[in-house]
């Protein structure tokens, strides 16, 4: 039921309730772990431990590196796998969407590989490329590739027929057809695909680093689990979330820049 949003001191009721909830949760966390001790520090870390863990990893380092080095390393791998997947996947999806023949040719192999969850590629990537960065980039590529193809394909299929016919009638073909008709027409779906690809990339990276890595946020998780260091695990989780949210936000920004004609901003 539509109700008007009452304003209190310039902020909406929604914001106030949101802030209040977070504060209450932090308070409960502090009470349960630090004051009453009902939750032992081995199960879930008290706020003080988390602060110390943060200081330790940011200043002295933990698990082969300092926090910013781990983050940078994870970001680098995600961008490499994601970048190659987009560079290959989007054109392939556009081609499959435009040409029935290309679709018929490529689809069988794609249908065979598509249902395999990207995380199931991790053991294969390790057999092929070992525990280094190359295996991670391969797995991220696989994870990001499928949504890029599918959504670009759907984007082309959803372009209004009259637009395609008009382009044909006006004699637009070749490179110009791709840049002026196909890509702008499929843009919204392409970006949907990129968003899904990016999320899949982060999930897959974390899993791949958990299985075995020297650097990266996933390797902090792994190290923290082995050392039974809950505070460090929590720090790693928080930064996994921040990195995922940050890269999604960057993509959302790119989307509004790339499609200024769409006034409504799409959120993840």
């Amino acid at each position: 039921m539509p109700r008007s949003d009452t304003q209190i001191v310039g902020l909406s009721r929604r914001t106030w309730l949101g802030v209040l909830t977070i504060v209450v949760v932090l308070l409960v966390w502090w009470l349960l772990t630090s004051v009453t001790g009902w939750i032992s520090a081995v199960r879930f870390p008290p706020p003080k431990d988390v602060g110390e863990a943060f200081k330790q990893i940011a200043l002295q380092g933990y698990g082969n590196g300092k926090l910013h080095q781990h983050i940078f390393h994870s970001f680098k791998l995600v961008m490499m796998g994601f970048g190659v997947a987009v560079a290959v996947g989007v054109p392939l999806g556009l081609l499959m969407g435009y040409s029935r023949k290309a679709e018929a040719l490529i689809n069988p192999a794609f249908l065979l590989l598509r249902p395999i969850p990207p995380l199931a590629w991790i053991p294969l990537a390790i057999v092929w490329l070992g525990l280094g960065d190359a295996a991670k980039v391969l797995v991220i590529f696989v994870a990001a590739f499928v949504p890029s193809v599918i959504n670009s394909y759907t984007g082309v299929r959803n372009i209004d027929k009259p637009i395609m016919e008009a382009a044909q009638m006006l004699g637009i073909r070749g490179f110009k057809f791709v840049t002026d008709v196909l890509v702008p027409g499929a843009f919204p779906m392409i970006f949907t695909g990129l968003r899904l690809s990016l999320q899949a990339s982060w999930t897959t990276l974390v899993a791949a680093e958990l299985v075995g890595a020297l650097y990266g946020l996933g390797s902090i998780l792994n190290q923290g689990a082995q050392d039974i260091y809950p505070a460090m695990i929590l720090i790693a989780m928080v930064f996994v979330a921040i990195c995922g949210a940050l890269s999604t936000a960057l993509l959302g920004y790119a989307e509004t820049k790339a499609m200024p004609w769409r006034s409504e901003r799409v959120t993840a």
Partner: protein
Amino acid sequence: MKASAKDMFGTAKLSLIGLMAFLGIWYLVDLSQLVSTKFLPMPHEVLLKLIELFHIPFAGNLLQDHMMASLQRYFWGFGLAVLIGVPLGLLMGWFRWLDDVVTPLFDSVRFIAPVAWVPFAALWFGTGAGGPTLIIFAGAFPPCLINAYRGAKGIEVRYLEAANMLGVGSFKTITEVLLPAAIPSIIAGLRIGAGLGWLSLVGAELIAASSGMGYLIVKGQAAVATEIVMAGMLSIGFVGVLIDVAIRKMESFLLRHRQN
């Protein structure tokens, strides 16, 4: 315009060529000995290994027993995600205060990749069944909640006004107006959640489990038995498709009275 029989035949022919080309390149790479068959076993070797895994145990179990172990965890995790996510989403769509309270909490945890819960799952549940269940839940829960919420929010206001005018209470409005209206959106959420849950299951079993499909392929990797890894990947993909088909069947059953 209906595709003519000739067109259909042409498509089928091209698809066949595509499939042959895929397998042909695979064989060629093997036969040219660019890559050792140890790392890229030939397609028929993978299939034979797949059949063999049904009657010769690997990593402690037969393939079907690994699959059952995975499915058992999966139905616990996914079931919990649906049972909590869908009602909570509907309630958030109806009660404004609940929306205001839950949304910030939900937003602050939804960007944590489900597999990132693995270390805590291990701390809290040890090697018990609770660990993988938690990971699957973490994967499947967000789409269940978000889609139920969006479905409830997207309802046409006149239905709610009609229910309100007829003196229907909150509970009945949710079960008899919001829920039916949100079904298509909820099912879409279940499909996404089912896929993410299946993915998370594999992740959980890769890292912390002693049975299941993820465990099977990770053991195959440790033994450098590429054909076992590939056979396991194929089975995981196949069952993932079956789960999706089952949900779509349920959708057409639930929506059988609707007209487009």
